[in-house]
């Protein structure tokens, strides 16, 4: 099935999200759609899959014009989209998710559904438990379920929006293998939306690059990375720099810590972090790294061990005491836990002003907000509410809200969903804080980020915390192995000699 988008236009108020975008996807190919955050990739794909109605332009399938009133109509024409956050039902079981709205019969045929799910799963080596609750699956498994569902509904064109955010390295490899199988052997078309250059480079046959709602260029395999970068950003980017900082005294000492939820326990974890040091916490989602980090922020109940911040024993102390000791925690859920949807930027900045007078001086608060918006390069006005900002700008606001002179900064996925430029900017800000003697602990699923930004890396597997690795002496492969629960030979040898 050949899909042509001709001069697609989609406006949101004054914002031209898509301003005359054309692209052609040939059958049997993997077509990349590349662009930085806010370039209009998702909007374009939502137009193609029936979620949005374009304000102008045409969609042609095998040369015939079509218009979709809803996603259901699009899938009826063989076009299915897998969203960045899979549109499934977390509290329901896998099989029910698969069967929901599958057909119009009164009684869903569970046996037939199960057979179909198993058969498709076998073809792509997806091992999904039909009785498992979807909310307990990893993001990667939820994607697999959605892919199977779209295929079962007869999708000939599958759109994947940033599918590699939040999935593990082996799941990513498996996903890529599946996509190749779909395109090369089954003749389906795959549209792969991403802001990650390496992924597009390894996977795609053709790529369309979007910049500010317009097509910045197209390219065929083999790609020139420099050329793609230039198309994406309009200029080439300098490689990340990392000025060395002398390490100070220890600011965080964790001794033999045990924290537990009833799903998972982290036992006997010990770590010493010195001022100016950057520690990366690695591991599959739910391996204990988040539990450990939240314990260091004073947000989890500690059952054994000690947490010492700046020489003060804070074990069991309330979160407020951690804050006073100069600990800050930036959660992954920017809008859910970090910011307050509905409040404006000015209100956010006024809110963190703890020593302020009883009555807020709104004029001064607005001035201050403007100041920080300039300094942190936030695309927004003091009156903008935070939920109206893009992910990258929300992260900038969170950084702008952090007080200075912190002792310990804890970050969950600091650059998740950000494009290269925004991610570089975020790390520049973070690394600059080391000079004030701030130690940084961050969780990331991006192996390159861990190796590039951290001094030492701590891998978690099934609640077990492993010996810290020196980032400079570690390779991507080693790290990948450890995250998957396998130890390399040298590591084993070292453990036995202890």
């Amino acid at each position, binding site marked *: 099935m050949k899909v042509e988008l001709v001069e697609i236009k989609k406006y949101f108020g004054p914002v031209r999200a898509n301003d005359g975008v054309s692209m052609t996807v040939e059958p049997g190919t993997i077509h990349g759609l590349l662009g930085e955050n806010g370039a209009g990739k998702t909007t374009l794909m939502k137009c193609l899959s029936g979620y949005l109605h374009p304000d102008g332009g045409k969609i042609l399938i095998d040369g015939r014009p079509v218009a979709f009133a809803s996603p259901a109509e699009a899938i009826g024409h063989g076009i299915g989209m897998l969203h960045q956050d899979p549109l499934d039902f977390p509290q329901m079981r896998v099989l029910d998710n698969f069967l*929901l709205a599958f057909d119009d019969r*009164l009684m869903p045929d569970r046996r037939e559904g199960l057979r179909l799910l198993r058969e498709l799963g076998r073809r792509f080596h997806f091992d999904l438990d039909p009785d498992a609750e979807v909310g307990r699956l990893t993001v990667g498994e939820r994607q697999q379920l959605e892919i199977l569902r779209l295929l079962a509904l007869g999708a000939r064109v599958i759109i994947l929006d940033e599918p590699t955010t939040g999935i593990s390295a082996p799941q990513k490899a498996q996903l890529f293998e599946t996509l190749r199988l779909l395109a090369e052997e089954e003749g389906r078309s795959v549209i792969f939306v991403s802001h990650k250059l390496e992924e597009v480079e390894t996977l795609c046959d053709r790529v369309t690059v979007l910049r500010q709602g317009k097509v910045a260029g197209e390219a065929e395999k083999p790609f020139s990375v420099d050329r793609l970068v230039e198309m994406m950003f309009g200029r080439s980017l300098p490689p990340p720099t990392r000025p060395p900082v002398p390490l100070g005294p220890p600011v965080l000492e964790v001794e033999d810590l045990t924290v537990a939820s*009833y*799903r998972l326990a982290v036992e006997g974890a010990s770590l010493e972090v010195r001022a100016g040091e950057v520690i990366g916490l690695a591991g599959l989602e739910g391996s204990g790294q988040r539990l450990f980090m939240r314990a260091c922020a004073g947000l989890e109940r500690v059952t054994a061990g000690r947490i010492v911040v700046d020489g003060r024993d804070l074990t069991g102390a309330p979160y407020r005491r951690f804050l006073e000791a100069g600990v800050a925690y930036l959660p992954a859920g920017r809008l859910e836990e970090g910011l307050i949807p509905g409040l404006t930027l000015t209100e956010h900045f006024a809110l963190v002003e703890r020593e302020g007078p009883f009555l807020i001086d709104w004029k001064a608060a607005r001035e201050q907000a403007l100041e920080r918006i300039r300094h942190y390069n936030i695309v927004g006005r003091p009156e903008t509410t935070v939920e109206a900002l893009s992910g990258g700008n929300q992260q900038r606001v969170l950084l702008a809200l952090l007080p200075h002179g912190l002792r310990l900064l804890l970050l969950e996925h600091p650059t998740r969903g950000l494009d290269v430029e925004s991610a570089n900017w975020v790390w520049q800000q973070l690394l600059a804080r080391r000079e004030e003697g701030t130690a940084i602990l961050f969780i990331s699923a991006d192996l390159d980020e861990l190796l590039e930004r951290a001094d030492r890396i701590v891998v978690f597997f099934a609640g077990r915390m492993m010996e810290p690795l020196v980032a400079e002496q570690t390779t991507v492969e080693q790290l990948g192995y450890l995250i998957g629960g396998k130890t390399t030979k040298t590591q084993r040898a070292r453990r036995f000699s202890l």
Partner: protein
Amino acid sequence: MEIEFLVQTLSSLVAAASPVVLASIGETISEKSGVINLSLDGSIALSAMTGFAVAFTTGSVWLGMLAAMAVGALMALVVAFASITLRLEQVAVGFVLAMLGLELADFLGNPFVRKPGPSVPHWPIPYLSEVPILGPILFDQNLVVYLSFLAVVVTWWWIYKTQPGLKLQGVGERPESAFARGVNVNRLRYIYTVVGGALVGLAGASYSLSIKLGWSHRHTFGIGWIALAIVIFGGWDPWRVAAGSYLFGLLKALGSILQRNPAFANVPTQIFSSAPFALMIFALLLISSEGVDRLLALLPPRVARRIDRAIRGRPPGGLGRPFVQE
């Protein structure tokens, strides 16, 4: 003698619990679709009054029941229109309607206060009612009680066994995902809110035409609020919601038994009539408390997860959230 007394008590308990069962099942249906119908208490009062008034005037119990269901459905329709179409705050709209319904029932029901009127005829089911013990408890009742049984079973079957039921779950759980699959989210929400409201109306009718015959000031005292709590207590699952309703009935029955005991003669009667409400809230607190988490942590994870799922239901993910297509 002892057994006879027990059977009699349980039989009246099952009958007395039927309005609560009907109302909480109705509310379960509407909340499963994502709409909180907080007007329950007013809705029950108004439909109880209407049901009795219509039955009294026409002499037909059945017309009374239908009228009551229509009133419940109408109240629910107002909630649906305000929350789905106008996207107003569901809780605020429901609360105002609850107050309004109560006052309106009082005002309009004045001519019918303490008048003797018709009641739903007793209707033992042949053969089944003769089964020892269970027969007289479950099948020697009236139609409203049987309807309350049926409501539980059919609702459970519909939600968990049928394709429309899957869609209902989906609409309440995550409307965006349901929309992506071609489900008309807002239409289904309208339908289920109104159907749930009709059951609430039937609950009102069962009050004035079967349990506590007639109409009087504050006739259905507080039953709507307790039904709302039971839906949460029952974790939005029809069987557990029914169990919660009977538990509440049991607490009330125990209250009146204890009250008759000479040993408690100088305890004020208000204690016995209000204790079930307090106990229900206490039970809710207990289930959602952190202490249960700590107990579960001692068990093997598989067992803990199963128990957690059995005693605690999570609200539908899209509960109270209007759906707007991009």
